[in-house]
């Protein structure tokens, strides 16, 4: 079991405001794996909503703030593939005008990992003990899958939980229709994409829908709840933490 590893949590705006239980589960899991967890105060948002809508000056200022906030962190762990992608692949470019800042952004990018990648790649752990039991289907969030090239780590972790029956989701790699401001700029299109996704989810017969991104969980969870579905949306961290999430 890993030890002597220190990790700072980047909770993300959606995680902080809407899914604090995901953050709590993440702390539980990381501590179970022997990681010393801390939480630098004053966190807000990574700036991705600004960035994606084209407000790059503004996004750069938010990025600069985040870079400073995590300057001392050994590892930064993020419960959302999209925010991790933002930090890892977009921050250095956003801050390229100032060489020192750019270097700091590159350093942060190198130290930052999405949760499942952190557990598997950095800690070298593929089996997390969890008393969770039930059937689970996994949705690949776009930025974790295509942005960070990760499809295996979350599945490996899920499969290695004794009580989990992992059911493959048809079209798991297709977008859930969230897309940040896209979901409210074109709500009908966003919902049509979501409906297709949720149809596939229900077809699996799984009790839980797992994902590694707060945005997707907000979208898919919002749809499941609206259609009074029995399927429960859960973040990977909640399944790994176990108990009765």
């Amino acid at each position: 079991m890993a030890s002597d590893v220190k990790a700072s949590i980047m909770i993300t705006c959606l995680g902080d405001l809407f899914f604090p239980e995901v953050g709590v589960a993440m702390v539980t899991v990381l501590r179970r794996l022997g990681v010393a967890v801390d939480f630098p105060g004053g966190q807000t948002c990574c700036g991705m909503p600004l960035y994606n809508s084209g407000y790059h000056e503004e996004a750069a200022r938010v990025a600069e703030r985040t870079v400073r906030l995590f300057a001392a962190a050994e590892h930064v762990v993020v419960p959302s593939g999209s925010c991790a992608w933002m930090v890892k692949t977009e921050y250095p470019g956003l801050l390229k005008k100032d060489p020192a800042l750019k270097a700091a952004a590159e350093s942060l990018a190198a130290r930052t990992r999405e949760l499942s990648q952190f557990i598997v790649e950095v800690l070298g752990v593929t089996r997390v003990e969890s008393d969770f039991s039930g059937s689970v289907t996994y949705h690949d969030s776009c930025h974790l899958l295509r942005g960070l090239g990760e499809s295996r780590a979350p599945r490996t972790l899920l499969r290695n939980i004794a009580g989990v029956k992992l059911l493959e989701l048809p079209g798991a790699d297709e977008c859930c229709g969230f897309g940040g401001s896209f979901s409210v700029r074109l709500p009908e299109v966003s919902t049509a994409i979501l409906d297709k996704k949720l149809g596939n989810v229900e077809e699996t017969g799984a009790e839980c829908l797992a994902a590694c991104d707060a945005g997707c969980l907000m979208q898919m969870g919002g749809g499941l709840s609206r259609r009074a579905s029995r399927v429960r949306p859960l973040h990977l961290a909640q399944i790994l933490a176990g108990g009765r999430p």
Partner: protein
Amino acid sequence: MSELLRTPFPERAGAALKDAFLQQALTIATTKFIDMRRAAFEGFPQGDALRDRARGIKEATLQRLDHYLGQLADNVERLGGHVHWAGGAEEAREIVLRLCRDRGVKMAVKSKSMATEEIDLNEALEAAGVTPIETDLGEYIIQLAHEKPSHIIAPAIHKTKGQVAELFSRALDGNFAADPEVLTAVARKVLRQKFLQADMGITGANFAVADTGTLVLVTNEGNGRMVTSLPRIHVAVMGMEKVIPSMTDLMVFLAILARSATGQKLSSYTTLVRGPRRLGELEGPEELHLILMDNGRVRQVAGPLREALYCLRCGACLNVCPVYRQIGGHAYGYTYPGPIGILLTAMLKGDRSVKELAHASSLCGACKDVCPVRIDIPRMLVELREGLDRGRIAPWSERMVFRAARRGMQSPALFRLGARLGRVLQRPFLRAGRLRRLPFFFGKWTATRDLPPVAARTFSERWRELEKP
């Protein structure tokens, strides 16, 4: 087309979502395309390396575009062809019309060409008294229906076979079954006569090889071959970026183009045209004209949309795009639909024309993933959005909202205040722990989805007790 554009994009998209036939046709066709493409690349381990190589060729060619275009023009002329340079759409149309006038052309058969769609050539020909006949089956269908293509390689993708049978029965005065084979046979019979009657054959070009002067057409129906060999005049309209240096390069592109488009190793027909009929040859046109068209492209060689010039027009990004798969091509409102279409529209018509379309993407990245030359479409869409803010094309209210959001993201105090405010304001709307109906802007979300409330205690607020393990 312009009438369609008077309706705002969200409404056009909304109408498409309600069209049951369109939904059925789109689901079937795009799913089939996706599966076929995937299977083609799974059985082709060198595919990834060839895609990199193809991208490299495009990059290098654009670096010396003037050189390769000059070489192409020289070689086409050396082989007896004529080369015309066209700045904009108007100029390109005028060149074709002048050829028709000077040579007494009454009818022109066409093989599928997005370049001619881009310049609305059919309308111009009709207005000048020349009858254009589309000979690609999909194009023929939409020509009979007086529509525009809704997909780059499958122009009639929005139609079910039942709709096509109805259309043929009405337009061709018969009673045809909704059977693709029957319908294809009907079209073949009609078109065969047209090939023989036409004075001019009009094509696009998938590639033009600079060092040999070869025009390359990739088709599946053999109509390209008829169009380039039966009429006495062949006119090819080509975007300038389609030039490639050599036949060796062509092999690279051919290996990935059909695989990306339809999952085929090669399309059924790859037609290579080198000059008009030569002395002693029995077939081929007497005249060959190549129109090299700029229409907004050259400016982008050093512009922000440069990468879009790599596009092979395979349509793979349309098939995987969750937005395209829901709304189809017509809702986009321009010649080129889908993710790449948004970029090409910006290139041809300017940034202002994609004010709404630039946001018609969830930035899921599936387009970039399947693009044979790995065009980073999501990045360019985000850059387009940035241009809309910088150019003050984005609505004033939106720009204010995002600037305010930036303040909230830069100040933890404001962020905390926002959370507290949210908790108070959401109270009247809470039902069983969910927000089911919110007013104003938030109603766009809650019309179809529940929203989780701002947590009673945010993670930041819970950290103090979590801190002590």
